């Protein structure tokens, strides 16, 4: 059927139909077409098809039409396409164009069917508009209900994406000067993992990338195809992910861009102004919501801050109260331990769940002084901790650092691993865990740059962690504690000083409280116990012997037991006991801790050692009693039952006591010696005067008699002769006595001047003996001489005669009625002379003193004599290079022996026989 034939049908169609010939001119247009396009049917006849199009489409149409003419192929033939058409009045409208071709009468006719899309477009627009409104309201409701922007972001992206039908969206917030990723959304089924991952890591500055573009523009922006935006950092990845069109819009808070939302579509799209307007609105709404959210957040923060400030103020107040209480508590006691215990007790539970305080004791050892725990159930555990795990042995962890470097440590969170590292053993770990250590503060106490201790505060897992304010407060506490510690120490030192001064004053008073130094020493020993020792002994050296021991103990029974022990086992001054060493060296010995080896040194036998062990000696101190140029004795102090120990401070004090005791002993000795000396001298003087007066008596009487007889009548010559002889005899006696006295003073003044010559000993003895004939007879003593011949030495004849005379006259005096034996012999290079009597003898005690000046071994009541004789003998014999000795038993006589050198000291060669 031809077009003409179908014209009536075509005339009635609602769709616009336009037919054109091969050249593209319109040959027919139905009324619908005319109505649609605004031309009359007639007017359209002969118009080119391009006349129905907007000018910009004409070139495309021309090209397509030409191609069709040439090739009979068309891209758009047969399928509906949406194109803009132009009405007569120039208004453009979207139509759906379907092209087809028919042949008629050998000619090709092109049929174009045009469907007005305006309604559809309008519908579409309405739909889109509704979608956009829905998107807006969805986004708005999400943001309205949101507490944080981040929380709303994902939901908003989904609302936008689903409602707008776009494939992928990203939410950016401005933070730290850049737009940073907050959330991503992609349409279900669309995968863009790489792109999303890249976005997550990206951040943009103004003008950088798509978000930066929107930021800089401060309004929504459109990208038709990301592929062509080479400068965008994500462009390549976007394109690779199949993302082409994109838009981004900012939202403002307080007039400034606070964030950007961008969306991507899977195909390139021309700019959609409407969409842009819509998202601009959304941007505005989001901005307001964000502003509200931020305001709310700020309000919440402000409330929280106010809360926190209030809590902090309360905490601060608590801390200040605590510090004030602590300060008062610390200042109220001078007892160091007590003070630090209070610190610990105060800290718990006010600022910590448990607290330990460790301090250096005077010996420099770190001691745990106090442990306090808030939970009474944990008391036992806390005490175990205190007793068993001394702080000095912390293996690792902060403790050693705090102590040595003096730096505080705040460990807000203490993990089990930390505990394990710090624990010295499994047990220690168990205790630490049991006590609950989840947060910890440790502060050192320092005095004048020296660490003196550590305060450790611990909180359990249930309590809030320690923070900076707690650390500062702990440091404040430590400052106060340091002050208290210093005060306590200084006080303690002052106390000790005073105590020491008092002791020394008391000691001096006691030492001089009696004329007998032993009494003073006993009182001193009692003074020292039990304050300064559990027991105390004083041993004095007198004439090379250790005198009976002075013992002090608070319990008299114990003192006695010790005294007995020491008497049973007399100390050997040359032995290896501590006391013996001190006596020899004059240097003190301090044994802070006494162990078996020390006891063994002082033990003379296993039984003795057992007895020493039984004393329970823990600590000992031995100081010398210092005399003028010798050690006069030793003062020993011991701690036993009270378990205390001596330290260097004690040593100093007791050395001073020892010095004073030594002075007292020396003074007593010197006094005794002086007294003795004076007594002997007085005795000597009285005897001397007695001796002198004896011959004077006879002399005086005889002379007086002579005088009387002269007056009365002359005496017969024989009587006169007798009297004169008596007078001469007395004068000689006097002379000898005076010589003796002179000898004494000469000998005292200096060494004797000897006049040596060759002396035959036997011959000299006989000479001296013969002068004693009368006296021997009168005393009834027989003299027996055993004299070796030829014993010749180079000696002072007169002095040696004096020696022999002395011995013989003593023998007569003390051994009257018994024989006297004198021997002289040579023995090796010595000449030996002995004089033996069988008289009253000499006690061993007196033998020692016999050859001393003024020494007398007999009572002055019975025996006259100056007591110089043997001393003079000694002086003379020693001057001749010899020795004198005595052997005697009381009642069994005495043997005096003199040894003289045969070879002269003065190197006279031809003496020996």
């Amino acid at each position, binding site marked *: 059927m031809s077009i003409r034939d179908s014209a009536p049908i075509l005339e009635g169609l609602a769709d616009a139909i336009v037919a054109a010939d091969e050249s593209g001119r319109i040959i027919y247009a139905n009324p619908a077409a005319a109505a649609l396009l605004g031309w009359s049917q007639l007017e359209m006849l002969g118009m080119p098809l391009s006349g129905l199009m907007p000018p910009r489409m004409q070139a495309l149409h021309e090209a397509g039409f030409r191609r069709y003419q040439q090739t009979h192929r068309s891209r758009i033939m047969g399928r509906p396409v949406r194109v803009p058409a132009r009405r007569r009045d120039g208004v453009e409208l979207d139509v759906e164009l379907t092209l087809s071709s028919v042949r008629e009468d050998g000619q090709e006719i092109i049929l174009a069917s045009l469907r007005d899309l305006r309604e559809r477009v309008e519908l579409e627009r309405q739909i889109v508009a509704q979608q956009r409104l829905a998107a807006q309201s969805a986004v708005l409701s999400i943001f309205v209900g949101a507490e944080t922007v981040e929380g709303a972001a994902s939901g908003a992206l989904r609302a936008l994406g689903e409602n707008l039908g776009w494939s992928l969206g990203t939410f950016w917030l401005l933070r730290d000067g850049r737009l940073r990723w907050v959330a991503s959304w992609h349409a279900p089924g669309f995968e863009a993992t790489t792109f999303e991952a890249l976005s997550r890591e990206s951040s943009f500055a103004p003008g950088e990338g798509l978000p930066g573009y929107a930021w800089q523009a401060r309004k929504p922006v459109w990208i038709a195809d990301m592929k062509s935006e080479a400068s965008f950092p994500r462009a390549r990845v976007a394109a690779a992910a199949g993302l082409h069109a994109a838009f981004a819009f900012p939202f403002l808070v307080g007039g400034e861009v606070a964030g950007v939302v961008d969306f991507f579509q899977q195909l390139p799209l021309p700019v959609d102004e409407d969409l842009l307007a819509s998202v601009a609105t959304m941007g505005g709404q989001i901005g307001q919501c964000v502003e509200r959210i931020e305001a709310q957040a700020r309000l919440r923060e402000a409330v929280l801050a106010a809360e926190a400030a209030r809590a902090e103020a309360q905490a601060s107040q608590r801390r200040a109260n605590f510090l004030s209480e602590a300060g008062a508590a610390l200042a109220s006691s001078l007892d160091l331990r007590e003070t630090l215990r209070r610190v610990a007790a105060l800290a718990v539970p006010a600022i910590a769940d448990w607290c330990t305080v460790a301090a250096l004791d005077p010996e420099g050892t770190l001691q745990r002084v106090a442990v306090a725990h808030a939970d009474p159930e944990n008391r036992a555990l806390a005490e175990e901790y205190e007793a068993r795990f001394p702080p000095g042995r912390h293996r690792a962890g902060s403790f050693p650092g705090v102590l040595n470097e003096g730096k505080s440590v705040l460990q807000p969170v203490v993990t089990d691993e930390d505990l394990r590292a710090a624990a010295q053993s499994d047990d220690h770990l168990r205790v630490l865990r049991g006590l609950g250590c989840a947060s910890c503060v440790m502060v050192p106490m320092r005095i004048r740059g020296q660490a003196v201790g550590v305060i450790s505060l611990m909180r359990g897992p249930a309590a809030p962690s320690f923070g900076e304010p707690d650390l500062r407060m702990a440091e404040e506490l430590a400052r106060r504690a340091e002050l208290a510690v210093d005060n306590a120490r200084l006080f303690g030192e002052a106390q000790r000083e005073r105590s020491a001064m008092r002791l020394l004053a008391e000691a001096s008073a006691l030492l001089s409280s009696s004329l007998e130094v032993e009494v003073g020493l006993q009182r001193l020993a009692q003074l020292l116990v039990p304050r300064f020792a559990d027991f105390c002994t004083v041993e004095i050296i007198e004439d090379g012997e250790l005198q009976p021991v002075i013992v002090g103990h608070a319990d008299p029974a114990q003192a006695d037991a010790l005294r007995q022990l020491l008497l049973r086992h007399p100390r050997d001054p040359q032995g290896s006991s501590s006391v013996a060493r001190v006596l020899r060296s004059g240097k003190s010995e301090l044994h802070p801790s006494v162990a078996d080896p020390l006891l063994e040194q002082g033990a003379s036998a296993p039984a003795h050692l057992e007895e020493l062990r039984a004393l329970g000696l823990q600590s000992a101190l031995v100081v010398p009693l210092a005399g003028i140029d010798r050690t006069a004795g030793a003062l020993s102090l011991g701690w036993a039952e009270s378990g205390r120990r001596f330290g260097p401070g004690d040593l100093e004090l007791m050395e001073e006591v020892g010095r004073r005791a030594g002075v007292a002993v020396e003074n007593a000795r010197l006094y005794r010696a002086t007294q003795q000396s004076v007594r002997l001298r007085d005795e000597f003087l009285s005897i001397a005067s007695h001796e002198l007066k*004896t011959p004077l008596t006879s002399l005086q*009487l005889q002379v007086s008699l002579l005088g009387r007889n002269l007056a009365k009548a002359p005496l017969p010559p024989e009587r006169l002769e007798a009297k004169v002889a008596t007078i001469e005899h007395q004068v000689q006696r006097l002379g000898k006595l005076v010589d003796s006295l002179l000898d004494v003073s000469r000998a005292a003044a200096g060494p004797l001047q000897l006049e040596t010559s060759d002396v035959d000993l036997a011959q000299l003895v006989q000479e001296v003996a013969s002068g004693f004939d009368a006296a021997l007879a009168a005393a009834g003593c027989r003299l027996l001489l055993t004299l070796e011949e030829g014993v010749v030495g180079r000696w002072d004849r007169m002095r040696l005669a004096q020696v022999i005379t002395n011995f013989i006259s003593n023998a007569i005096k003390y051994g009257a009625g018994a024989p006297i034996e004198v021997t002289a012999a040579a023995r090796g290079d010595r000449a030996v002379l002995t004089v033996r009597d069988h008289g009253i003898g000499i006690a061993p005690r007196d033998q020692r003193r016999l050859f001393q000046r003024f020494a007398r071994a007999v009572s002055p009541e019975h025996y006259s004599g100056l007591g110089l004789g043997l001393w003079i003998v000694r002086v003379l014999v020693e001057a001749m290079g010899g020795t004198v000795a005595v052997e005697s038993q009381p009642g069994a006589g005495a043997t005096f022996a003199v040894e003289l050198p045969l070879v002269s000291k003065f190197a006279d060669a031809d003496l020996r026989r």
Partner: protein
Amino acid sequence: MLISGGNLPSMDGSSPCDHLVLVVDDDADIRESLSDVLTDEGYQVVTAVDGRDALVKLRGPGVAPCVILLDLMMPVMSGVEFYAEKQSDPKLSSIPVVIVSADGNVRLKASSLGGEYIAKPVRIEQVLDAVQRHCA
């Protein structure tokens, strides 16, 4: 009146002879000198060398001196020991004693030994005075 030593009057020991003096001294020269002085004045003299000797002589027959001149410092038995012995013997206790001593404290010592003393060196007058007070 000179009476040479020799025949002593026979005594029964109950009454002292007013001519007899006992001289006790360990020094021979002093014994001799005192004897000379006393015999020159007509006394009879008995001497003893120490306290024990003196007691023996006193307890012997015919020795009842009117006074004893007693030295203090003597061996075997001193003057003090002798005096104590003498005082405890009723037969001897009444015989007066004059201490003759060179001891520096003779006065003090003599006070418990009868109280009479002469300090050596003695003068003849002192000796004769002392003897005459107790003897005829």
